[in-house]
């Protein structure tokens, strides 16, 4: 289990049990541990910074209220899964509230992509040092996420961005693993199309050409030949 904060060495489950046992500070430790991650989740879903911080707090308030049936769910042993289930429901409720009240689109929906982005990501972009490059990649991603439905955004973020397994994401969103994978298939395709528009190709490497095919077919023989060549066993 990934722990974001390390102020309290107890596990999530121990902290939550401690809170239910009237240790108020245990809730603060949990909040400290997951605040950033939840805030980022809400931002990537497309909410404003102010909404993101309020939705994060609302999620923890709901965890603190901890209805009995939810506690039962938590007792299955996956606190993060439960936390993101609550977070997703909080986000969805707020999204509906926004639609009902003001019909204001989510922040990412407002962006129609008029501002040109100059992003150049290559295969070496595994550990970007440049903050500006990170920001640009995040912007491109946010614009592409805006093209997805609310649920598919959540699936993409939880599965591909945060790295939860299909079963975990299914548990968080009330879906089966197969449904998650199916939705993810379409989601990935849309994201791929969008990123390609922005100059980021996700296509697998091109099919090997004829010379490459010969090399692959006779790879073992070539390796033996090279080995012998290094030892000087081959007569020129």
């Amino acid at each position, binding site marked *: 289990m990934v722990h*974001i904060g390390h102020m309290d060495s107890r596990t999530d489950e121990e902290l939550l049990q401690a809170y239910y046992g009237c240790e108020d500070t245990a809730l603060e430790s949990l909040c400290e541990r997951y605040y950033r991650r939840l*805030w980022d989740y809400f931002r990537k879903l497309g909410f404003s910074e102010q909404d993101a911080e309020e939705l994060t707090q609302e999620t923890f308030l709901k965890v603190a209220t901890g209805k009995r049936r939810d506690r039962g769910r938590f007792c299955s042993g996956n606190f993060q899964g439960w936390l993101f289930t609550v977070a997703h429901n909080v986000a969805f409720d707020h999204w509906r509230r926004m639609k009902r009240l003001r019909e204001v689109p989510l922040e990412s929906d407002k962006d129609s992509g008029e501002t040109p982005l100059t992003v150049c990501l290559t295969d070496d972009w595994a550990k970007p040092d440049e903050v500006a490059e990170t920001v640009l990649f995040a912007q491109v991603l946010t614009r592409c996420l805006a093209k997805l439905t609310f649920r598919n955004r959540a699936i993409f973020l939880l599965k591909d*961005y945060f790295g939860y397994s299909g079963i975990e994401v299914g548990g968080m969103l009330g879906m089966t693993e197969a449904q998650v994978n199916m939705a993810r298939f379409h989601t990935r395709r849309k994201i791929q199309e969008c990123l390609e528009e922005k100059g980021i190709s996700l296509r697998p490497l091109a099919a090997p050409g004829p010379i490459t095919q010969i090399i692959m077919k006779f790879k073992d023989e070539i390796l033996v030949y090279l080995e012998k060549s290094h030892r000087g066993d081959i007569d020129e």
Partner: protein
Amino acid sequence: MSEKNFLGALRTLCEIEVARAPARHSLQTQKCLTLARFMPWSQANWTDSEREHVSGCRYCQRMMALVWREECPRLWTLVKYKYAMGTFPFDEAMRFHVDRDGCPRCSRILNSPLIDRLKNLVAQGADLAGSAVAAYGEVASAAEFASIKRPALHIRDTSEDGLLVSTLLETAEGLLVLHVESPDRKNIGRRVVAEVISESGSLLRVELELVSAGEFGCRAEHAYGRIRDLPWSRENFVFLVRWLGEAG
């Protein structure tokens, strides 16, 4: 960029973005109450300094409004807010709840004549904290989807000190019955007044005396008759139960 590297890049981006995210709410200060202190069961135990802080703190007001997203404020709280009675400490929270969150239930109640009738009761000396009061009808269920078949009436409320619990319910036979309970046996023999006030102004008033309910404290009961025969049953109404006289 290959798919594998794209996933790697996403995870790296995730690590960076999470690390760059704020560690706490932008309005939160060291003096602000902890989340646990905002739980409904903790609010009754706030110290004077906590109350004073909350009344002037934007973060704490927001937290109150977030708590109200889960469970709306009590009717009395709305009366106090609308008529600025005493020192109402949650002004900003209430504005947030009604205006920004657009709570349909509280907006409807604040614009209903029922709230004026409650205000009049307060003006006549009704004790706010010691009463159990609930709304029924469109007012209460404004946020819910309309039901083709009306569900059986069942409303319940507990006074802020927890000493008076009242339930108004419709039985399977269509009778409207009132139950009043108190967990404290010291209240045996005390009298309560139960009032039903409709939007059109009709008033139904009953006085009851609490009798022993064994180890469970004390209780009283009253049957109003068949609900379909009651003139206000198709209106919005509030239902209020309060003590008559001081505790012995």
